[in-house]
């Protein structure tokens, strides 16, 4: 693996296979009484989050701790950026303390990439604006691989607010890299502009008709409607969104009973996903969360443990 994880473009299918194999072992460690491995003893991992997060930040923190790294959380609100310090000064200040990895979430697309050029530490992009969220894509693919036995030729359907979704971008890249057939579904107003050219170049399909796509799905991933990034006008009402694109009880019946349902969280229950679907036996939403820790342990291990990693 390279020194940073900024985009799924940074990793090869071999890297992904290595991360998955390590994650499977880490999954076993999660079930142990003593959840501690000494691999990153003496390393320091800083979680620098300028946007709210529950699962990404806490799972990176747990992942670092279980590998014996020292992990520290800094949030935008509690840092000097709220006093007017620039991102560059904040990051250089933290780097000057001698950190080995910076796990970063920022509302600007490309922020992690920019930061990686300022510091010697490994930078892990934990979400930059509407651009990418590579560790989420890896844990989703890991969850699916374990559930489906492999992704080659499997049909994965992504549904929801694609315009504002970094999870969508990283997931499409990752799933295609692993040989899956991908269809993305959204209302026309939430389909990103330029998706036509990208889908032709990358080799995935787009659709506005969820009911037509669901019967052939091997897995379906619901994406959150990101109210905080919308200044209104994308759909007439929440009810209308649910009728057209929500995974409702009626649509659940269109899915095979063993077709896994994913959602990267946090869910808007009743909007993009009905409680019946979220809590269905075929829902792997909580598996995603537990895979999150294992996959992030694997990412930290491969970026930081060996020679040539940031010291």
């Amino acid at each position, binding site marked *: 693996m390279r020194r940073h994880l900024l985009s799924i473009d940074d990793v090869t299918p071999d890297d992904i296979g*290595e991360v*998955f*194999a*390590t994650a*499977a*072992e880490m999954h*076993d460690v999660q079930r*142990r009484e*003593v959840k*501690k*491995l*000494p*691999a990153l003893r003496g390393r320091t991992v800083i979680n620098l989050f300028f946007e709210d997060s529950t699962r990404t930040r806490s799972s990176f923190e747990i992942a670092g701790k279980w*590998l014996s790294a020292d992990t520290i959380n800094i949030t935008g609100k509690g840092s000097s950026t709220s006093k007017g310090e620039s991102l560059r000064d904040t990051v250089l200040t933290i780097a000057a303390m001698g950190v080995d990895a910076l796990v970063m979430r920022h509302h600007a697309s490309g922020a992690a990439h920019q930061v990686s050029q300022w510091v010697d530490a490994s930078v892990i992009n934990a979400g930059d604006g509407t651009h990418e969220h590579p560790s989420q894509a890896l844990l989703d693919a890991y969850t699916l691989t*374990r559930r489906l036995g492999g992704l080659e030729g499997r049909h994965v359907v992504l549904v929801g607010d694609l315009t504002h979704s970094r999870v969508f971008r990283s997931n499409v890249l990752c799933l295609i890299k692993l040989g899956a057939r991908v269809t993305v579904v959204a209302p026309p107003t939430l389909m990103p502009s330029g998706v036509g050219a990208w889908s032709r170049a990358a080799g995935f399909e787009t659709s506005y008709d969820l009911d037509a796509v669901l019967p052939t799905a091997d897995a379906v991933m619901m994406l959150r409607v990101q109210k905080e990034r919308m200044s209104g006008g994308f759909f007439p009402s929440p009810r209308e969104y649910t009728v057209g694109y929500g995974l409702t009880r009626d649509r659940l019946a269109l899915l095979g009973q063993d077709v896994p349902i994913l959602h990267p969280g946090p869910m808007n229950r009743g909007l993009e996903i009905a409680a019946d679907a979220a809590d269905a036996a075929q829902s792997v939403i909580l598996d995603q969360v537990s895979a999150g820790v294992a996959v992030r342990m694997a990412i930290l*291990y*491969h970026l*930081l*443990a*060996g*020679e*040539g*990693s940031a010291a």
Partner: protein
Amino acid sequence: MSAQPPPSPEAGVPEGRTVLDERDIARALTRISHEILERNKGAADLVLLGIPSRGVPLARRVAARIAAVEGVEVPVGSLDITMYRDDLRKHPARGPQHTEIPPGGIDGRTVVLVDDVLYSGRTVRAALDAMNDIGRPDVVRLAVLVDRGHRDLPIRADHVGKNLPSARTERVAVRLSELDDVEGVWIS
């Protein structure tokens, strides 16, 4: 995910002088199995943990011999030590291999660690650390197919297939039919 260790990067017959052939290995493992039983006064509470890659098939073979002699299926597992190595930072990060602790665990058991070659003793130190995070055995013993000397740490084996005096510059290669296309021990 596959539980199998990755295929050996060195295919074919290793260079150098043959120290043990297939039958020598079989005899050494039979003797080790009897020694373990003798020392333990039977198979009670025994757990065999192989250290990947080649300690694992060796542990399975010892278990099969114990089953043949005593009629008891001794629990066999594997104990990966990658993340416990003291030289982890000196090499590019290698993915960990499979750790599998038998369902009964290792608490209060007599654990016999099984590895192919005993050299510096650092692998065994790492294995003792790794075991510490998993449970507390009553007794830990060490069985190795080859002891080539040159210890860096105060560690010794309880059961040795062959003591092999060697120079530090020499290479000892072990190949087992479960993982490799040939079987034997070579020195070059």
